[in-house]
């Protein structure tokens, strides 16, 4: 049982490039989340999903896209990378059995992204 895994661990992008951050969970959780954390700051929610085929915007969705085709995977897509997207990205999941979006979340190790 690996929990929440994220790939890659670190990536450098040039301005305008695109990439997909991968997130997979093996806990059969319904809910999944993407956060970004800028240096010295708290986490901000980018997108979340309450089940396969269902996604919704969080606090800072601009510049990102997500999809949820399976229960296990929740990739985050950056289409046109900008320096403002330099951050650490965390994926998380929660059981999704209580009917509330805010449940105990299990976080992945994070992906550090640098846009130059």
């Amino acid at each position, binding site marked *: 049982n690996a929990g929440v895994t994220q790939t890659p661990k670190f990536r450098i992008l040039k301005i305008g490039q695109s990439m997909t951050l991968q997130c997979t969970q093996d806990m059969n959780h319904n809910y999944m989340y993407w956060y970004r954390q800028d240096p010295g700051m*708290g986490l901000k929610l980018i997108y979340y999903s309450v089940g396969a085929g269902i996604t919704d915007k969080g*606090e800072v969705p601009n510049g990102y896209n997500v999809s949820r085709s399976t229960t296990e995977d929740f990739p985050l897509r950056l289409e046109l990378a900008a320096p403002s997207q330099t951050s650490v990205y*965390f994926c998380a999941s929660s059981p999704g059995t209580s009917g*509330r*979006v*805010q449940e105990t979340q299990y976080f992945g*190790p*994070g992906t550090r992204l640098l846009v130059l």
Partner: protein
Amino acid sequence: LAKTTQPISMDSYEGQEVNITCSHNNIATNDYITWYQQFPSQGPRFIIQGYKTKVTNEVASLFIPADRKSSTLSLPRVSLSDTAVYYCLVGDITGGGNKLTFGTGTQLKVEL
């Protein structure tokens, strides 16, 4: 979005009790309050969650007053390994959807 406020930093010594308060004036009626701990270069880790009054587990206690506009995380007898950033999380259902707001985080430094 519900705004949460925490002290930026706190210092303590090993063996002392530490209390960290989070203010959340716009908490929604059906939302719970959750605290997470984060070490450098790691994702946050769940500590405790509650709705009202007091909740206690093996690592911490959570005190929530009747008006639920604040909460206090209590760490008994801290050790060096408790040095971390502590976040208060409050669900927010304003704006037509569920949005989660982490607090600014409190950097706890524990010394010998």
